[in-house]
């Protein structure tokens, strides 16, 4: 029976090759407990994120954006097609957000393993404490549904920004490169924190940030700067 089902689903995938597939969570559904509950992850990933991906795939099917890389779709649709943009950017934002978290993460990035990141945080914000204050402020004041971001230019100058809806810094004015994000749509925290967004944001910073991923993103951002100048 199990085999029949998986055969059927393979067939379904083959029959309708999706432009973008929902990536699995990079951790188990219970891995972030009690900071983020299994229930939240199940719905957030399995329903919200999955819905953005499904809607994106159906919206681009048969258009020139079908089977284009997700970032291309985001950039191309930004000014021209709001619903494709919203779903494409939300697909990207959530995939990125999951990777920004891990069990036993958060706190200050480790100086010895992430020296470049620590240097850039200090150079851009003065201190980790200042970065954290600015990031929490952005996350807590994104009015309605939005995202808080740590972004980099191609030289590794960092700043904090917030966006509303699906908006992503890679297309927003300034066109900066996201290296960390926190989802502050209410669905990200409501089952665990209800209206207490600041507690969720503090918990994210204190216990969840995956600094390895952030450091890699910074490295890529600066690499693209080096390639850019060649």
């Amino acid at each position, binding site marked *: 029976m199990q085999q029949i089902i998986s055969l059927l689903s393979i067939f379904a995938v083959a029959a309708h090759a999706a432009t973008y597939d929902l990536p699995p969570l990079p951790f188990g559904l219970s891995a972030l407990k009690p900071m983020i509950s299994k229930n939240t992850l199940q719905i957030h990933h399995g329903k919200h994120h999955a819905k953005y991906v499904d809607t994106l795939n159906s919206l681009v099917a048969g258009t020139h954006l079908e089977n284009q890389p997700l970032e291309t779709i985001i950039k191309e649709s930004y000014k021209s097609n709001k619903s494709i943009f*919203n779903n494409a950017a939300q697909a990207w934002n959530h995939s990125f957000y999951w990777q920004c978290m891990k069990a036993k993460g958060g706190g200050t990035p480790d100086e010895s393993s992430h020296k470049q990141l620590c240097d850039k945080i200090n150079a851009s914000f003065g201190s980790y404490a200042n970065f954290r204050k600015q990031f929490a402020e952005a996350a807590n004041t994104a*009015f309605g549904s939005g995202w808080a971001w740590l972004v980099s230019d191609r030289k590794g100058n960092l700043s904090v920004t917030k966006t*509303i809806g699906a908006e992503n810094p890679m297309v927003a004015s300034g066109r900066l490169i996201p290296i960390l994000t926190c989802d502050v749509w209410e669905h990200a925290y409501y089952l665990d924190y209800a209206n207490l967004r600041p507690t969720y944001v503090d918990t994210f910073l204190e216990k969840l940030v995956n600094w390895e991923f952030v450091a890699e993103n910074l490295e890529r951002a600066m690499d693209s700067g080096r390639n850019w100048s060649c």
Partner: protein
Amino acid sequence: MKLAISAALVGSASAWSTLTMKAQTPNSRRNILQKGAAIATAIAAPAAANAYAVPDLLYPFEALEPYIDAPTMKIHHDKHHGTYVANINKATEGKDEVDILELQLNALEAGPAYRNSGGGHYNHAFFWDEMAPPDEAKKTKPSAELEAAIDKAFGSLDDMKAKFEAQAAPGAVFGSGWVWICASSDGLKLVGTPNQDNPLMKGVTDEVMFPILGLDVWEHAYYLKYQNRRPEYVSNWWNVVNWDKVSENYAYVTENKAGVPVRG
């Protein structure tokens, strides 16, 4: 007479929106009295620090069960609405007290605190009062005048509901926002607005319009019970709409060419 006073008070863009302020209501008389009182006590004390308050619900938190659950009502009313009220009180501290309805028209120019927290206060106060427990709501219906206006604009009440539900879908109001039925210069209109914006605010919709029915589609309005299933929340919500109150709202805005006053 009423119109003359209103028009004299506000100079703004369209014929319809020049009429949005209502100099003749009890609220405005209260403002005038309060202004007088404020002047009298100005030497002794600064202007009132808590001009706005969260109005008590007209029904218990659990009264809208099973369509809207008690925990949602309590957090929504006490915490979310409470925060908007605290923030608009902070933003207006030391200023002359103005009825919350009258803050709406120029909220965009007045800045984010007025737009977000002033809008949040008005919208929620409006929202609570248009709902009733399901067994009471069931006995209410649109007045003959409202029904005629609905038929004219949307075909029928069922058609209006279907269009409203489509406008309330996550793809139509993306993220946080509200869905409204409003009286406009051209009959009833259906619109969605982002965040805490509403059609009373100049610049939000093509013209200023007067809401008679509004639905909160922020995730906090339904997430504890419905999670990602916003459409189910929206279709269930009709069970707690008090059509007598909506009819009253319609009669008020058509007679006064002004937004509905709210408690708080």
